[in-house]
Structures are given as C-alpha cells and as structure tokens.
C-alpha cells in the first residue's frame, strides 16, 4: 500500500509541472487539459470564474477567494472524498478535489479544517477507527503537498460510528466510506 501512495504522489508531481500558473489575485488560470485523473479543467474567463472542473458528473467553477468554499457552484463546496472498500488510497476521481482544497488552504492561510475519517459498517469497530484515520491522513498528505500547512488540519477518526447513510447495502456502504473536510 505504501508503494501505491508514493506512485500517486509521483504522478501528482508530474501533473503539477504541467499545470497552469496561479495569478496574483489567487485565481487559477486554467488552460491545459488535466485529463489524466478523469477531471477536466476548464478555462478561466475574464471575470476570473472558471468554466469548470468535473466531479461526479457535475461541473463546478474553480477559484480560491475566501468565500469560494461556501459557493455551491464552486468545486470547493464539495467537501466529501469517497473511498473504495478496505482502502485508504485517494481515488483518481477525487484527487483533483483534494488538490483544490489544498491550494485554497495554501492561499487562505487563516483557514482551518477538521478532517473526519469514516468507514462503512463492515468489519470490526476499532479496526475501522484505524482505517478511517488512514483515509483522513491520506487526504491530509495531499493537502500539505498542495501547500496547506499541518497546523491548519485536525484529524478525527470516527470509524463506522457516524454513518452518513444508515442502510445496510452497497449503496449505503459507498456513501459511508469517506473523509469529510469541515472548514471551521
């Protein structure tokens, strides 16, 4: 598992090199395609609002002003990262999301987050606390890589104790395997 994390970070490094410059006003100047991870980065128009990045089939604007995290049209309004069963690797389709939050935190140095880790109900409870902690730690590592600092992040692991969905089927399990970013 350790190897996969290193490979992912290496791939992120490569993509970062290919990425766009950040304007002085903190807005991202997107132009190239960042298509490797299933996310498309759209262009930024004159008003500074990005035409979009995709997450879970929806398109969102990309910008990093302070209020962006509360703007439902902005990618930063999405604060839940979902995971595969028994895995704490950040899925390809969520890497961009985490990176955007990392960039936001780097640019808004006063921002602080609680990063909460969760699992689905399967398996033993205390093991799930440790697995959920790993998920949150994986997100934190990527945030720090994008420029957030460690003291901006507090991690709490809830294991399976706080489900988002109280069902007992695949659909519920999918919704429960998550890390949540909560801006304080």
């Amino acid at each position, binding site marked *: 598992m350790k190897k996969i994390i290193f490979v992912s970070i290496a791939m992120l490094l490569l993509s970062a090199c290919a990425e766009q410059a950040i304007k002085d006003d903190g807005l991202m100047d997107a132009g190239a395609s960042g298509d490797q991870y299933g996310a498309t980065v759209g262009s930024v128009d004159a008003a500074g609002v990005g035409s979009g990045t995709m997450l879970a089939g929806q398109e969102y604007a990309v910008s990093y002003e302070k209020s962006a995290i509360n703007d439902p049209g902005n990618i930063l309004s999405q604060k839940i990262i979902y995971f595969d069963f028994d895995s704490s690797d950040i899925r390809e389709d969520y890497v961009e999301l985490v990176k955007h939050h990392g960039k936001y935190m780097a640019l808004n140095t006063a921002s602080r987050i609680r990063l909460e880790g969760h699992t689905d109900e399967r398996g*033993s409870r*205390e*093991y799930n*606390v*440790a697995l959920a902690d790993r998920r949150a730690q994986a997100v934190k590592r990527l945030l720090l890589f994008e420029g957030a600092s460690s003291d901006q992040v507090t991690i*709490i692991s*809830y294991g399976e104790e706080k489900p988002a969905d109280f069902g007992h089927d695949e659909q519920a399990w999918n919704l429960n395997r998550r890390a949540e970013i909560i801006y304080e």
Partner: protein
Amino acid sequence: MKLKRIIIAAALLFNATLANAVLNIDITEGVEGAMPIAVVPFRWVGSQKLADADVSAIITSDLARSGKFSPLSEKDMLSKPTTPEQVDFKTWRIAGIDHLVIGAVQLQKDGSYQVQFRLFDVLKSQQVLGYSFPADRQSLRYVAHRISDYILEQLTGLGPAFDTRIAYVTSSRSANKKIEYKLQVADTDGFNPQTLLTSKEPIMSPVWSPDSRKIAYVSFEQGKAEIYIHDISSGKREKVASFDGINGAPAWSPDSNRLAMTLSKDGNPDIYVLHIRNKALSRVTNHWSIDTEAVWMPDGESLVFTSSRSGKPQLYQVDLSAGSTPKRVTFEGNYSANASVSPDGKAIAFVLGEGNRFRIAVMYPETRLMQVLTDGPQDESPEFAPNGSMILYASQVNGRAVLAAVSIDGGHKQRLVLSDGEVREPSWAPVRKK
C-alpha cells in the same frame, strides 16, 4: 428433547429515572441433550410474591438461557411441592425430570427476606444442594441469580455466569437523524438497565475491570476519542488517555494495573500499555501497519491483537518482554480481527470476514483448529462469558443491531433484544460486584 422456542419478556423498570429501554431475551434455538429440570414456584411466606422479584421464575429463565437445561413449564407440573416432605420422587421420575428445585422466600420482621432452596436428584431420590440466603428488597434478583449459578456449577461443573452484569453501548436516532449514544450496564438477563453515560458523540469499546468495579471505554464527547475509567459505584471517572490521534481499544490486564490500548500519537496506530496508577506508557508494537484491538492472555504476559502487517487484518500474539516479535495466529481467510480470549486462555473468539460476510469464529491456538459459530452477515464484538461456556456478540437482525449469545460448541444460540434502539459492543463482567 425436542427443540423449543421460548420467549421471555422482561418486566418494566423499577424507577422512572433509570433507562427506559429493557432487554428482552429471545431464545431462538434450543439444544438437544439439555437436562430436564423442574423449578417449582417458590413458596412466599409473610408476603405476596413480588412480580419484579419472582425468584423461581428468574432461576428458570437463567437455566434455560444457559442452553444446558430444559425447564418444565409451570402448567405442566402435576404437583408443586415447597417442602422436602411434599416431594414425591416417583411422579417426577415418571414425568422424565432429572432434577428438581424447590424453595421459599420468607419476609422477616425487619423487612428483609430469607431465601432458601433445595436441589434434588430425582433418579437418586436425594437432596444434592441446599442453601439459605439473606436478602433485601433490592438484592432478591441477585440472590436468584446466585442460586442459578450454584445449580449450574453443581450439575455442569461450569463457573458462574448469571450473578454478574453486562455492559453495552446503545444508540437511538431521533427523527432529525441526530443520534444519542448511551453506555449502559444491566443484569445478565437484561433487567435493571442503568445508564452510565449519555452522549451526542460516539461511545465505544466498554470493558469491565477484572474486579467488576470499573469500566474503561472510549468517548468522543469532547470532540475526539479519549479513554476513560469509570467507577461504577461512585460514578466518578478519570480520563486516562487523550493523546493526539487515536485513543482506542482499551483492555484491562488480568492484575488490573494496566490498560493495553491503541494510540496513533507516534504516527501510526500501534499497541501501547499504560500503567494506570503512575501513567507510565510503554510501546508494544512499532510497525507502519494498523495494530489495534489488543486483548490479554490470562497470564498477563502477552497480548493478542489485530494487525494489517501482512496486508489484511489478521490476529497476532506478542510477548510483553522486550524485543519480542509478534507471531501470527490466524491463517484462514483474509480477514480476522477483534479477538476475545477465553478465561483459561485456550480459545480465542474473533471476527472472521469472507467477502461481505462477517461471522464469529473460535480458534484453539494449541491445535490451530477453527470453528465458525455464527451466520453473520454483520456479526462482531465477540466476548467470552466469565465461565467460558458462551460467547456474547453483536449481531444484526432485520437491519437492527442486537446482542446475541452462542455456546462455545456452536450448538445453542439466543438473541437478546433491546426493546428500542440499537445495542452493540457487549462486555461481560467477570464477577458480580458485591
């Protein structure tokens, strides 16, 4: 004997300020070869029979729950002796009953009670056991449980299981999806539930101290996981672990002086041992994998724990002497976690996962034999009874979390159902606090 279905409903609480949810015991499978026994309704002298302290009914329910006995129901009793002179062994022999219990509850002048019982071997036509106990109004139920333990030990050789308590976590969800968590203790038949802690944040992993006076548990009430030790009689509690990161999976050493626990303060979930009085902390595992859920072997010198160091969770055992390397203990399947060690150290109950199915299994380290005891699909938190004969665990029925118990040979199962809310994470107290 035929398989029987017995549903025993619990009476309601005594005190409105106590927890308002009561455990019901629902025996779902009987067992072939259970001993036929008759517990004749006790004679009440000087007072009416107390509905919430019906001593002979409590004994009948305990013996049935053990899975070792098949008690005769009162309506099938052709006679109801309450003194030795009234016992006609021949009629009981003809009825196929091997053992007979009779007794009396006598109200004394000072308001206390005297409870006496006699156990007879019907085939030998002789008394085998007879005791008299003082009791007060509050302790009548516990005297009944003690009598059940005496009978159980006399006829099966097993140690006590009834005159003790269980602890568990309940959660209930209000309409707006807010969860309320409670830590409760109750008698082993579900009566007398008392709430030790109510919280809007999760409570986990309650474990009784070896002397049954305290419970250690994990509480998130202050926004993160912390380990507390809670004194049952005084209600006082001490926070013993609040390190950065995970504080979880507490386990009492057999000598009560130490708690094994899971901490991630040094970067990764690992096993540590905390000396409770002087707070000295020593690290037991140091590995990048997840190490958690430590439990003690009865000699207090080694721990069994869950580790993902070979890729998926498996059980390992490690000596507490310095420089010891953990040795793998489970080898079947790709998920073994959440161990409970039997009181004699010869068996380990654990959660065995296969795909989406999680069941309780027991393995014997000496022979490396393993037996799956339950059906799942989401069984967890196995906990040996103090006499080693049964395993209490958490299960799900129709999507609802319940407690269940299975005999160590897998032959007898029963379900304990909370009348509202979800119940999980049972812990069985080793000995009844006197």
